[in-house]
């Protein structure tokens, strides 16, 4: 199990848990970062730690603190779709 921050470009994964608290936890849950959700790293910002992930039909950029608080399990490409 790794965090979102450790994904490489284009790598697919599945959310295991959100280990944040308070507003950050709530925000991530509301965006659909819940157990079992597929997520892909789409983009990295030119400089800095902002990364954009595709999750549930849309793309959201998160800073390092948020990325690190979402634990994921990498999924083999060509594995189960959706």
């Amino acid at each position, binding site marked *: 199990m790794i965090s979102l921050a450790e994904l490489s470009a284009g790598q697919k994964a599945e959310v295991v848990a*959100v280990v*944040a*608290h*308070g*507003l*950050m*936890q*709530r*925000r*991530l*849950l*509301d*965006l*659909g970062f*819940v*157990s079992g*959700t597929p997520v892909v790293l*789409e*983009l990295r*910002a*030119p*400089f*800095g*730690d*902002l990364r*954009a992930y*595709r999750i*549930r*039909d*849309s*793309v*959201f*950029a*998160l*800073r390092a*603190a*948020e990325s690190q608080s979402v634990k994921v399990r990498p999924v083999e490409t060509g594995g189960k*779709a*959706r």
Partner: protein
Amino acid sequence: MKAAGSVAMPGVTAPAEATGAFVVALAGNPNTGKSTVFNALTGLHQHVGNWSGVTVGLAAGTYRHAEREYRVVDLPGTYSLVATSENEVVAREFLVFEDADVVVVVVDASALERNLGLVLQIREFTGRVVVCLNMMDGAARHGVQIDVAGLAAELGVPVVATTARDGLGIANLRAAIARVCAADDQPAPCPVHYPADAEEAVTTLMLDLVAKDPALPAPRWLAARALEGDAELVRRVLTGDAARRVEIPIVTTEEAERMAAATTGALWAEVGRLLEQTVRERAVDRPRLTARVDRVLTSAWGGYPLMFVGLVTAMWLTITGANYPSQWLAAALFWVADRGHEALAWAAAPDWLVGVLIDGVYRALAWVIAVMLPPMAIFFPIFTLLEDAGYLPRVAFNMDRMFARAGGSGQQALTMCMGFGCNAAGVTSCRIISSPRERLVAILTNNFAPCNGRFPTIILIASVFVATAFPPYLGAVVGAATVVATIGLGVVATLIVSGALTRTILRGEPSAFVLELPPYRRPKLLPVIYRSMYERTLRVLYRAVVAAAPAGLAIWLMGNTTIAGATPMSHVAGFLDGPGRLLGLDGIVLVGYVLAIPANEIVLPTIMMAYTGAGAMVDVEQLTGLETLLKGQGWTTLTAVSLLVFVVLHNPCSTTILTIRKETGSWKWAGLAFVLPLALGIAVLIPLVALARALGAG
């Protein structure tokens, strides 16, 4: 919610009863075309609504359908009904306390999964719902096939497919809204089933709530929110002495967070089930074009250079394109002034009347229109085009590192971009920032983004003083680069002051930040022209004209009356000349800035009128004559540079100050927002000018 009983708070009257109109609340995620649906429903019949509490100032519009009046309220775009930002607070307050007859949830059909989360949350809360499945054209293009009837059956509420920007499906939407409003019985809220222990806790509290206050709307939804830690909301909804009798269990932070994980987990599981049932084909990847364009526009090598080139190009187009129309407009409007002179002379009007009407008020108006209209009519459509195509979130994405370093929210890049349009609008847009501390930082620094009222001054000084120093083929590019450098100064000031604030009076932990990067969309020409011309250009021009007329009168009076042997203008300008010189400017420029507090747009016209002595601008039919005039008044390159700095670093206009007062609820912050940029401007200019003079400039 009507059927469920009263949820009105003490002192709050439901507008529906007051006007006899049905109240339609328009909810939805950001980027779903919600405002397009709003416009399609209400046309031009829009105004800023008058609601209670935080929901004050929501845009509302009306339309008639089958001889009934409908009042549509455009709620802010939100991903959820949980109060994690000011926008969500506003949307939730309206839904809970304003008793809408129907909630229309606008959904992006091509991103159904994302949008269904909010639909289910609202469905948990009320049965009076219509789902507007918008952007059906985009869904079709991506090969998404949705079983609309099946979705309606699953949700238990009407689902209407629309493509609002082509006006498709709007008639059906109105009909569905009418049916829900007219129906006596409504589907009950639709519960999402939680895991066993969460379910048990929610049910227990719900039964207690219902026992104490049988008329309570959406008790299950309220019980779940209370167990997630928001007991306050429930207490506010409860009526009479039930608020005292209900025992809401005190939950620890861990328990609240476990509950939130359980309820949202169940919600998204239900979304997954709905998708299985109703969507036959789904787009698995992002639209290929968006993915490709993003790889270029947000790349390490291209992100910043392309942003810069784009800005220079926009400015170059604005400067070159506005030049001739401005001259024609000025020529035409001043021709009218001359005819006015002749007419009044023929009518034997007294000199003072001619002076006040033509040389004072009319010339100020003519100047403002001739100078401002052409650049705005070019710049605003370009800006709106980029906004509609979806480029602005990419700017925020690229610039986040700098805002993170300054301790600000990443959303601040977006609110700053809005500030380039209008600082008052920029200050209001800070509601998207969830942390109150970071929101305050963004509000206090918004004025460093030079707004469109200030662009004419920047553009004019850049083209008259800087561009003319170069051969014509270089002039426009150098002029554009000067404008961009001035904007750059604004961005740098934003970052430095944000950094200073977050390290002193607004210290704290950075909050959670999420930024959506929606797919690029091809902008629709007509709405872009409508929004940029009507909502931006004409609105800004109107503000300028309203401020210019009295200013023109004041200047004429100041320049044409005599107190103690001299005009009031020369008294005031003489008084301010010392401080003005220290800033590299002069007394007249400072007078211009004082008179321009209601609208920055009139700074230059005011200065021009004051310079031309008699209060009349004699020789401005040719904008190139401006250079001669200003140089005749002793302007140098140093004066121009100082003015460009002062344009960025000075107090906000009165509208922005009042907006800051409203948004922060405090004159203290509004006062700081006034003093901060002005003090910075003085602190930067005095040493800069002294140094330049020591080196022999100016």
